[in-house]
C-alpha cells in the first residue's frame, strides 16, 4: 500500500466513526471494504481481470455464506439489501468506465456494463443455488477443498502459468506472453484462510450467526486485506456490532502504532530493501562477510516491512473501533525457535495450530506412533504448509522443512536438557547469558532459513549458502 492509500484508509475509518457510532458504521466499513477490494487490486495483464478477480472473490464469499446460512436468514430483508448494495457498488464501478476518462477505483478500465450485468446474474444464480443446497456441512467441506485447490493453482508457478495461458486464450489475448504473475490476486491468501476458518468453524458448530454485511466486511476488511492479520470472525463481529464513538478512540495507541508502522515500513524496510539479499545480488556478492550483511539486511527488511504493515493495519482498524489481533511480538529477540514462531505472524500460526496442528496431533495420538515421531510429523506438516502458503515451490517447501525440523529439534532439546539448563541458570547473569545466546542462535537459524525463502531455486540457495561460509 502507498502512503496516500494509507492516509485515505485512515481518513475513511475515522469518517465512519465520526458519522455513525452504531450499525451504520458497519455499513460504511462494508462499503469501504468492498470498494477497497477493487481499488487495491493491482493492474493485471489479462484484460479486465483486475476487475473480475475481486468480483470472483465477492462471488465466492457470498456463495459460501449462502451455503452455510439458513435459508430464512439468507432471505432476510437485511441480507437481501446487503446483497443488493454489493451489486449496486459493482454497477457503480462499471459506470466509472463511462464517467471518467481514466480508471477510477480500479487499476484499469472496468469492463463494459453488459458484462457486469451478466456477471451479476451468474453471481445471483450461484448464490441462489448455493442457498438451496441444504447440506451446509458438505458445502463447507467442498468450499474448503475448492479454496485449497484454488490456492494451490495460484501459488504454483507452473499451474498459474497454465491458468494464465488458458485465460488469455479465452480472453482473446496471446498466450505467448503469459506469466505466472498474471494472476496476482490481492489478499486472496488471507481471504482464503479467513474463509476456511469460518467454514471449519461452521462444521464444528462454532461459527456465530453473521449477516452477509458482517461476513463480507470481516473477509475484506480493508486495513487487513493485503497483509493480514487473520482475525477470527467471532472476535471481529463483536467489535463491529459494539457501538463505538469518536470519544472512545484510543489516540495514544493509534498514534504510536501508525508512527511506528510508517517508520518501520517506509524508512527502515524500504531502505533495507536496497541492500537486502535478492536473486539478483546473491550471485554477484564477492566475499562472505558481505553475503552475511545482505542476508541480515533481508532478515530485518522482511520483519520491518511486515510488522510495519501490521502496525498500520492495527492503527487504521482502531480508528473504526476494530481491534485487530497482534501479529508480531519482537520475534527476533526470542530465545528459541518455538517462541519465535509464537511471535512471528502470530495470526497465521494460531490459524494453523487451530486447523492443522491440533487436529493432526489429536488424530496421531490415537495411533501407535511414538511421541517423538508425532511431534516431528506435526511440526513438519504445519511448517511445510506455512511454506507452501507462500508459494508451491521447492524452496518454500525446504524453508518449511527447515523450520519444522528446527522446532522439532528444539522440542527434543528442551525435553532432554530443560532440567539441567534450568539448574545451571540459577543466577540472573546466567539467565541473561542464556537468553542472549538463545536469541542470537535463533536469529541465526531463522536468517539462514530466509535464504530458501528469498532465492528461487535450490541451486541458487545452496550456492549462496556456500558463499556465506567462504566455500564459493
Amino acid at each position, binding site marked *: 500500500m502507498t502512503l496516500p492509500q494509507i492516509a485515505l484508509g485512515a481518513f475513511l475509518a475515522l469518517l465512519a466513526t465520526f458519522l455513525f457510532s452504531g450499525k451504520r458504521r458497519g455499513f460504511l466499513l462494508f462499503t469501504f471494504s468492498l470498494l477497497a477490494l477493487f481499488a487495491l487490486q493491482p493492474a493485471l495483464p489479462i484484460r479486465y481481470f483486475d476487475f473480475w478477480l475481486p468480483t470472483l472473490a465477492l462471488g465466492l464469499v457470498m456463495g459460501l455464506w449462502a451455503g452455510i446460512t439458513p435459508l430464512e436468514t439468507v432471505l432476510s430483508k437485511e441480507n437481501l439489501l446487503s446483497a443488493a448494495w454489493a451489486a449496486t457498488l459493482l454497477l457503480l464501478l462499471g459506470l466509472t468506465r463511462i464517467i471518467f476518462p481514466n480508471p477510477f477505483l480500479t487499476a484499469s478500465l472496468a469492463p463494459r456494463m453488459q458484462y457486469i450485468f451478466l456477471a451479476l446474474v451468474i453471481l445471483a444464480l450461484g448464490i441462489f443455488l448455493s442457498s438451496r443446497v441444504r447440506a451446509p456441512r458438505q458445502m463447507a467441506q467442498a468450499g474448503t477443498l475448492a479454496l485449497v485447490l484454488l490456492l494451490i493453482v495460484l501459488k504454483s508457478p507452473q499451474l498459474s502459468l497454465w491458468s494464465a495461458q488458458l485465460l488469455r486464450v479465452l480472453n482473446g489475448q496471446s498466450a505467448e506472453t503469459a506469466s505466472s504473475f498474471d494472476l496476482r490476486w490481492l489478499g486472496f491468501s488471507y481471504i482464503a484462510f479467513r474463509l476456511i476458518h469460518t467454514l471449519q468453524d461452521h462444521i464444528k458448530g462454532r461459527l456465530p450467526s453473521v449477516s452477509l454485511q458482517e461476513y463480507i466486511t470481516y473477509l475484506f476488511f480493508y486495513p487487513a486485506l493485503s497483509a493480514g492479520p487473520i482475525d477470527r470472525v467471532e472476535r471481529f463481529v463483536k467489535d463491529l456490532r459494539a457501538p463505538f464513538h469518536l470519544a472512545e478512540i484510543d489516540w495514544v495507541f493509534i498514534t504510536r502504532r501508525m508512527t511506528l508502522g510508517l517508520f518501520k515500513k517506509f524508512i527502515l524496510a524500504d531502505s533495507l530493501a536496497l541492500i537486502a539479499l535478492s536473486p*539478483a*545480488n546473491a550471485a*554477484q*556478492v*564477492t566475499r562472505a562477510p*558481505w553475503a552475511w550483511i*545482505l542476508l541480515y539486511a533481508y532478515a530485518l527488511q522482511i520483519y520491518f516491512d511486515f510488522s510495519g504493515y501490521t502496525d498500520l493495519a492495527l492503527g487504521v482498524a482502531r480508528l473504526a473501533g476494530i481491534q485487530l489481533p497482534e501479529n508480531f511480538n519482537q520475534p527476533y529477540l526470542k530465545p528459541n525457535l518455538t517462541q519465535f514462531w509464537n511471535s512471528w505472524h502470530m495470526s497465521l500460526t494460531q490459524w494453523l495450530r487451530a486447523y492443522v496442528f491440533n487436529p493432526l496431533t489429536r488424530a496421531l495420538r490415537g495411533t501407535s506412533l511414538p511421541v517423538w515421531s508425532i511431534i516431528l510429523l506435526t511440526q513438519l506438516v504445519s511448517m511445510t504448509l506455512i511454506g507452501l502458503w507462500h508459494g508451491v515451490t521447492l524452496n518454500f517447501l525446504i524453508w518449511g522443512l527447515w523450520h519444522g525440523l528446527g522446532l522439532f529439534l528444539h522440542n527434543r532439546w528442551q525435553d532432554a536438557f530443560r532440567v539441567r539448563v534450568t539448574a545451571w541458570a540459577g543466577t540472573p547473569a546466567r539467565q541473561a547469558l542464556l537468553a542472549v545466546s538463545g536469541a542470537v542462535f535463533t536469529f541465526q537459524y531463522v536468517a539462514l532459513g530466509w535464504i530458501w525463502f528469498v532465492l528461487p531455486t535450490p541451486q541458487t540457495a545452496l550456492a549462496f549458502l556456500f558463499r556465506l561460509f567462504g566455500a564459493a
Partner: protein
Amino acid sequence: MEKPFHPLRALLKGLALYLLIALLLPFAPPLTLSLYNTPLIPGRSRLPYGESPAQAYNLSLFSLDAMFAAHEVSQSKPADEYRVLLIGDSSVWGLLLKPEETLSAQLNLQDSSFCGKSARFYNLGYPTISILKDLLIFDRATRYQPDYIIWLTTLESYPLEKQLSVPLVANNSPLVHDLIQRYDLPFDPHDPALVPVTPWSQTLFGQRRALADQFRLQLYGLLWAATGIDQVYPASYPAPQTDFEAGDDQFHHLPAPLAESDLAYEVLSNGIARSPAPVLLVNEPILVSTGQNSDIRYNFFYPRWAYDAYRVQLSALAKRSGWNYLDVWNLFPASEFTNSGVHLTPAAETLLARQILQQIQPQCSE
C-alpha cells in the same frame, strides 16, 4: 497519574517541530556525511552515476559534495603520490567498461612515475557531454591537490546552447553562478535553464529528493562494495551508427561554416588559465565511419564540415595559448567503438592510455 492525551496538541507540537527543522535547514552546513572511504565502504573509482540504481548499485544525483565524498579522490593524498585527475564525459567515466577497464585504470596499470613520485590517475569523468559540466567538476577537483590534469573533450562538448541545460549544471545554479563570476564565463546567471534556488527549495520538504538520493547513495555503496558493480552491463547493445541519410549534415542546427562564437571555447580557456596544475588537453577519439554517406558524416554526432572546422579551431587555440594538446581523433578503427561514436573498447583504452602517458609533461617543483 497518567496525563490525558490530546491528539490536536500532539499534532500541533509535531507540526511546530517540523517547521522549526524545515526553517533551520537552509542555515545548516551542507550534509557531507558519507560512508565511503571508510573501512566499511571503499571510495568509488568513478563518480556516482546510474539510471537503474537497483541493478547498477549506483545513482545519479546533483550534489557535488556527495558525489566527491563517494569518490576515492576524497582520500587524503599520500606524500609519494603524483595525483593526476582525468576530466571528461562518458568515454572517460567508462560506459560499458568495468572499473578496471577504464582509461584511468589503464593509466594506473602502466605503473608510471613523475617527479619522483608514483603516478595515480583518478577518473573524474561524468556521462554527459558538456564543457561547462566539465568545468564544474574541474573546479571542484582542484580542491583535491592535483599535480596534473588531463582534460578530454570532443566537439559535442562545446555548443553554447546546450551548456546550461545539462542536468548536473542546471541543478547546481549557485555553483554555476559562482563559476560564471570567477571564470568570467559568457553565460547569463538568470538563464531559465538554471533551476532557481527558492526559499521553498531550501526547506526540508524541498530538499527531500536530494536528501533521499544522498541516503540511497550510501546504501548502494554497500552493494557496490559487496559486488564491485557500478553500472549495468547489458549482454548485447546496438553498434554505433555508421550509415547515414543523404544530406544529413546538421550539427545542432548551427550554420556552416562553424563559428567559434557558437562554441564555448571560453569555458575551456578560462578553466585551463586558472588551473592550479598543468593540463593536458586531449581531443578524444571518435568513430570515423566508412558506411553509407560517410563522406558527409563521420558518425552520429558529427558532420565532416563541422568536425573538421572544430579540429582546426581547437588546434589553433591550443597553439595560441601554449597548451599541451594531444589530438587523437582518428586513432582507432570503427571496430574499437562499443555503442557510440565516442565509447571505446577496453583494448582501445589501453592504447589510448599509452598515447596519453607519452604526452604528459609534468612540472616538477624543487
